[in-house]
């Protein structure tokens, strides 16, 4: 199929980039143009996000966790030949916010250990600072050694495919955490601050609301200490590979990241996500479905990846499809898969900044040439960019 025979999508696709360390290849930091000695500096992250903004991307996500990274899903690996150490994602996003003006900023937090109250005020504050560009990616932690860093609970070794056990509990708790965060974001009505000198009142306290959440795992009284943010509800996003996390996304998220390996797989996953929405009785806007791909771009992409595989001692393994090739070919693939019902993509650059620059300077022009990507930012919030309305306030509705 030639690019220009592809029917243009009715709506342009959305494009996000996932930032993590030196890139998504474990040996990315050993690439020639990598700057591994700068990973823990503000300048490194600002450079990346400013480059993403030059490419007019919808948003960037920031990975995070509460244990040392590992090549194994459930335990520490004690390897020192891969990037180890991370800066707090919410703080990294906040640091970049004043240096950018349009791009969305979506940090990760761990619902299993972090208090939802702290998340609500952190992401709410990021939304204030960025003037409506904040999102959030909640994730669960299944690692027993991560729980030991906190000493508050013991997490038994889990079977990630068994939704009846620990995994089910962790996702249930995560759904409660998101519910608490969303209620706290609504706990101030938009016009609660009145500064009425005549009555001496700074706020109209009838427009502040206790959330009175009581769940199986915790209870939270509210209201938030932070006034409602510009977007009202910052964008909630989550990564999902199976029925349980699809249902979590259908309950909790605005955007779900999925990992199809081809167009048919994408169509199958879209159907499963829509079925999950039906099962949980989702109301409001349907989930925006973004496919994740690990990308190595350029004529030499396959060779670069092979060299990194050699350095790491293993072929790159990923939950997501790994793409190597020219930006034009990736553009074609994205448009092709888009016909399966995807709304957009979250690309995981194999090497930073190399494969990010290839996206912003190679892939984006290729998509623009196909009429499938914006030529400039509009002046709106992250939610608006994704076609989501300014959310009404659940408590305002109740008192109206």
């Amino acid at each position, binding site marked *: 199929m030639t690019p220009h025979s592809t029917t243009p999508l009715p709506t342009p696709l959305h494009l996000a980039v996932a930032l993590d360390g030196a890139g998504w290849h474990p040996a990315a930091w050993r690439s020639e143009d990598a700057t591994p000695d700068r990973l*823990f500096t503000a300048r490194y992250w600002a450079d990346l996000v400013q480059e993403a903004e030059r490419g007019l991307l919808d948003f960037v996500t920031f990975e995070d966790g*509460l244990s040392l990274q590992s090549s194994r899903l459930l335990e520490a690996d004690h390897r*020192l030949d*891969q990037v180890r*150490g991370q800066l707090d994602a919410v703080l990294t996003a906040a640091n970049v916010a004043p240096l950018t003006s349009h791009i969305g900023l979506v940090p990760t937090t761990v619902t299993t250990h972090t208090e939802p109250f702290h998340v609500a005020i*952190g992401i709410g504050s990021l939304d204030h600072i960025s003037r409506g560009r904040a999102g959030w990616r909640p994730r669960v932690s299944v690692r027993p050694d991560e729980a030991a860093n906190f000493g508050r609970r013991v997490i038994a070794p889990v079977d990630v495919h068994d939704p009846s056990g620990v995994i089910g509990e962790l996702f249930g708790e995560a759904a409660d955490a998101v519910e608490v965060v969303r209620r706290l974001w609504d706990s101030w009505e938009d016009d609660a601050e009145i500064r009425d000198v005549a009555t001496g*009142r700074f*706020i109209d306290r009838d427009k502040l609301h206790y959330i009175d959440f009581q769940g199986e795992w915790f209870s939270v009284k509210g209201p938030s200490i932070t006034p409602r943010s510009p977007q009202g509800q910052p964008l909630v996003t989550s990564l999902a590979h199976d029925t349980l996390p699809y249902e979590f996304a259908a309950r909790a998220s605005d955007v779900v990241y999925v990992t199809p390996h081809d167009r048919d797989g994408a169509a199958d996953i879209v159907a499963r996500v829509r079925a999950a929405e039906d099962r949980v009785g989702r109301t409001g806007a349907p989930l925006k479905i973004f496919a994740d791909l690990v990308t190595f771009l350029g004529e030499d992409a396959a060779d670069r990846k092979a060299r990194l595989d050699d350095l790491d001692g293993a072929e790159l393994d990923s939950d997501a499809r790994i793409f190597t090739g020219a930006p034009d070919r990736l553009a074609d693939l994205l448009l092709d898969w888009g016909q399966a019902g995807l709304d957009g993509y979250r690309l995981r650059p194999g090497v930073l900044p190399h494969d990010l620059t290839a996206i912003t300077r190679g892939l984006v022009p290729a998509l623009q040439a196909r009429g499938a990507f914006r030529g400039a930012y509009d002046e709106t919030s992250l939610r608006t960019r994704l076609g989501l309305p300014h959310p009404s306030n659940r408590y305002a509705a109740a008192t109206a």
Partner: protein
Amino acid sequence: MTDPGTKQIHLAAHFPGVNNTTVWSDPRSGSQIDFDSFRHLAQTAERGRFDFFFLAEGLRLREMKGRIHDLDVVGRPESLTVLSALAAVTSHLGLAATVNSTFNEPYEVARRLASLDHLSGGRAAWNVVTSFDAFTGENFRRGGFLAEADRYTRAAEFLQTARELWDTWAADAVAADAASGAFVREGGITPFRHQGQHFDISGRFNTPRPPQGHPVIIQAGDSDEGREFAASAADVIFSRHSKLEEGRAFYADVKRRLAAYGRRHEDLKILPAVTYVLGDTDAEAHERAAEIRRAQVSPQTAISFIEGYWGRDLSGYDPDGPLPDIEPDLEEGVSKGRAQFRRDRGAVVAKWRALAAEKNLSIRELVIELAAPQTFIGTPRAVADEIDTFVQTDAADGFIFVPHLTPTGLDDLVDKVVPLLQEKGVFRADYSGPTLRDHLGLAPHA
């Protein structure tokens, strides 16, 4: 040249808080939540070569008579998130966050502070506070489980644990040596295991050692235990003793305690929180100061204030009329989310009645009269001299200024007083190093 015996002054700026010091009714008063307000105050402080910018914290909105208190500023952002954003628009200013040790866990707080220290290039500070109230605890999973007596043991163990975590990464742990393939050098990260009364944790910390070694530690406790904790573990004390004589007594008492911990006099800086009002003449400054105190006590604030002591609803009383004739209810408290009243409220009320009768004061006039005058009132020259005298006579090492206006409340201090202190040779004309420890004259934490 400056006399070598002359002390250098340290200055910090406090973002206007959620109490009635902050005058929101002034037409010049800007947003308490918009980032531009934080940016303006922080950049003003940096223009004045201040040591650091300070944010307070409160994790539950205050209540009076069972309802959210609506007369003062309400609402603020998450401290570390805002400070991290300010790190991007300042280059030298220290960034101090108040973070509660009751409603957090050491692993997470340690990495958030380490992250701020990395993102700011060594400018992070942590004001360690501990609360024990179940009221705030209702916003958290753990609830208000902490007995009051355990406050300092938890705070001390929390801080100790955070220090253990920061120490698990060697300063040169990140080798990033592509040739050898060592991202982290062998032995660069040591596993931790902490078993104590409050925390039993083990594993590996996931953030490299902060540029300052450890962020600067601030402590605000005033009790005997609080002073001892500060002498043992803090780099800065945020004190309440802003009068010359009591300031000297506090200063001597705390500095005396340092030796027991093998610490030197200069290892702990004592910075009282202070307010100020400038005028072209002394009389003008005092007139403005009185106006501000009046603006700080609205009619409704006056009634609310005395309700806190009467323990009763007094909303039917005229703020411009005499004090209530009914007796206080000494059993009931009406205020939540602030430090509890510990004094004998009955005796306080009796004293106020005598004062109001003697000076013929209305409720509002009495409350204004009771408010302590601003710490420094006068011409820029007089205020600069007074600041210097406080520091040179060991009542303080410097001050944390609490402006009454957002966001312009520090402008005249920086424009008019700081240059005079610089002229005297008692305050830096420029930063001598990039980190907050450099500004405070503290060694990097080894």
